């Protein structure tokens, strides 16, 4: 099914599978991921390191290195366009202009030999036919929008002269350059300290409202999710295990993995107690357990979990979780 262009649905990823073929068995980094981003919506993809969040983002932008990566199946539709069927040249026009990405590491994501004015200006010039002077004015406006003080003076600064937070602001300015419909932010605040992190989150929230963009926010930090998300997808071992509105996820999580993540979050009530941590570690993408991928670490595990890969169980209002045990027993429903 190819969704209509200009509908409310901006991005839909269907059964995406990305495998990595190295030496040895195939690593199924993304193993059947479905998610949707609607216009003007902030969607958070949450999960531990190595669960396939970044690979999914790179697949959307067509930036996966192939080989070693192989798109083993699935489809991605962006505003009615099937991204895997787009020729490379059209895909390139889409990148930056309609889908932009903000990377995790602001310290290395800017080219050290150019001024930030050059780099933001280039982001404008690549996709739009404007004069250098117009590009310069746009650059100043963009830098102002992202909260760089005195942008006229900072234009001629080199990246090494800026702090991490300022660099991330510049990266966001570059992503905003062509007013994209969707910004994919891949852990943009992970490398920043907490006060700067809060500033960047506020900035993203405000920009989303001002520019009417959708944001796909990739993070492992549930605190960040609580601050900005409209809709949350929890990923584990290359699959989405639970999805729902931010309220549903935080108030009545229905998957043991989500519950465990929430339990391992430090809160005021847990002060003085030993913080919960999920036993074990994320399975290697080439050696995933059969059945439910989370069962070896799950406190509600039943023998049936080792056999069949669970389907989604619907809890209404778009809240779904892949756990038959909790669905049948209703365990945890009252705890939260």
């Amino acid at each position, binding site marked *: 099914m190819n969704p209509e262009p200009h509908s409310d649905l901006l991005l839909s990823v269907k059964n995406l599978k990305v495998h990595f073929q190295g030496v040895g068995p195939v690593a199924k980094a993304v193993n059947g991921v479905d998610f949707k981003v609607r216009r003007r919506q902030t969607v958070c993809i949450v999960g531990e390191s190595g669960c396939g969040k970044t690979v999914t983002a790179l697949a959307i932008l067509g930036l996966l290195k192939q080989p070693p990566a192989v798109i083993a199946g699935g489809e991605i539709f962006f505003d009615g366009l099937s991204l895997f069927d787009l020729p490379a040249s059209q895909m390139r026009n889409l*990148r930056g202009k309609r889908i932009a990405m903000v990377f995790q590491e602001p310290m290395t994501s800017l080219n050290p030999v150019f001024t930030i004015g050059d780099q933001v200006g280039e982001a404008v010039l690549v996709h739009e036919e404007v004069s250098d002077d117009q590009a310069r004015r746009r650059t100043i406006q963009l830098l102002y929008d992202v909260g760089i003080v005195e942008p006229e003076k900072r234009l001629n600064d080199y990246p090494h002269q800026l702090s991490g937070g300022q660099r991330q602001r510049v990266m966001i300015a570059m992503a905003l350059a062509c007013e994209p419909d969707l910004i994919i932010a891949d852990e943009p605040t992970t490398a920043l300290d907490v006060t700067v992190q809060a500033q960047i989150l*506020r900035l993203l929230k405000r920009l989303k409202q001002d520019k009417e963009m959708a944001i796909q926010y990739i993070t492992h930090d549930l605190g960040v999710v609580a601050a900005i998300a409209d809709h949350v997808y929890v990923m584990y071992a290359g699959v989405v295990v639970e999805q729902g509105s931010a309220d549903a996820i935080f108030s009545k999580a229905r998957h043991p993995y989500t519950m465990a993540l929430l339990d391992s979050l430090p809160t005021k009530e847990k002060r003085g107690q030993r913080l919960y941590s999920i036993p074990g570690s994320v399975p290697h993408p080439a050696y995933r357990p059969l059945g439910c991928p989370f069962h070896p670490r799950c406190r509600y595990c039943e023998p049936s979990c080792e056999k069949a890969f669970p389907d989604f169980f619907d809890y209404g209002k778009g809240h779904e979780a892949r756990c038959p045990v909790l669905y049948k027993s209703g365990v945890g429903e009252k705890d939260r």
Partner: protein
Amino acid sequence: MSTESKPMHFIGAGETFMPPSYSPWAQTWHLLLKNRMALAGLLIFLIFFIVAIIGLIVTGGVDPILDPARVRLQEKLRPPLSLPKTDTLRKEELPALGIYLLGTDDLGRDVFVRMLQGAWVSLTVGFVAVGIAVGIGILLGGLSGYYGRLSIRLYHILFWSLVVTVAGFTFHQRFWAAALLLTVTITAVAWKRRLDSRLLPLPGPLRWLAMPTLQVDTLIMRAVDIMLCFPSFFLILTVVALLPPSIYNIMVIIGLTSWMGTTRFVRAEFLSLRELDFVAAARALGISDARIIFRHIMPNAIAPVLVSATLGIASAMLTEAGLSFLGFGVPPPHATWGNILSDGKAYIFDAPWLTFIPGVVILIVVLAFNLFGEGMRDIFNPKLRERN
């Protein structure tokens, strides 16, 4: 922008108090001023550059101000700083400076004037040869580093052999055959591009044409290895012996036999730079490959290449001097430092200045280039910088 959000982004203490901008080049210059040896090298280089240009002006043309080829047999082997014997010389034979600054050679030619003429040869040989080498090196190294993982497929080889065949037919004036083959080639290429634009593979029976043969990286780096296997001076000697002697041939040959180091350099830089986040960020902005290579990666890779080019200029000058010394270089009567040295060696006891002067000048200029090059290397590499 909404008004209530305005104060938000003026939070962040210290963001207004930033140092003034220094470009990387300004910093390089600042560090260069501190490095005395490199600065001395640069000064000597600049003097040499100016002298070479003056030399070209005063010794070139049909009726030069200072004629390097003027033979005065009665004045042969005069030591430096000697005055001409005005009674035996005709008016036009008198040296324009009124003194033999660096003496005369066995034919009574003014060594100072010949050295001036030779300076321009050394300079152009150095720069043109290294220019060629660096050009090839950047191109091949960049290809190898950025596109190295791509495979050369059977149809690429087929395409190029068709192109060569067409060129061959055209050369032998078989225009019909050439036109036919050209049509076939263009049709095939157009068809392949259409398949590509629709993301279709080759149809089944033709799939073997897409068989990968070599990787681009393998091809280029093995070519480098092969070139490095030749003792390049003897390769140059052989080629020079086959080609008519001319200064341009020398430049091109030295250039074509010294690109391997630069290629390896550029490849290594590209391999590490292309994995960096800013390249990924540039790609995520939809910037084209060519622009990424030349605008984003190249400026970051160029510093060590320039250093090796500076050192390469010195070695190209030495090679030219060596070739001229052996008599394979620039043909006489044109003077170069190498052939002045070579001409002088027969009189090394009677007129030591004939060998001493060009030898010392070559030494000083090559040393200056090496000092400057190594100084720049220290500046561009912070790890080496800390040692001093």
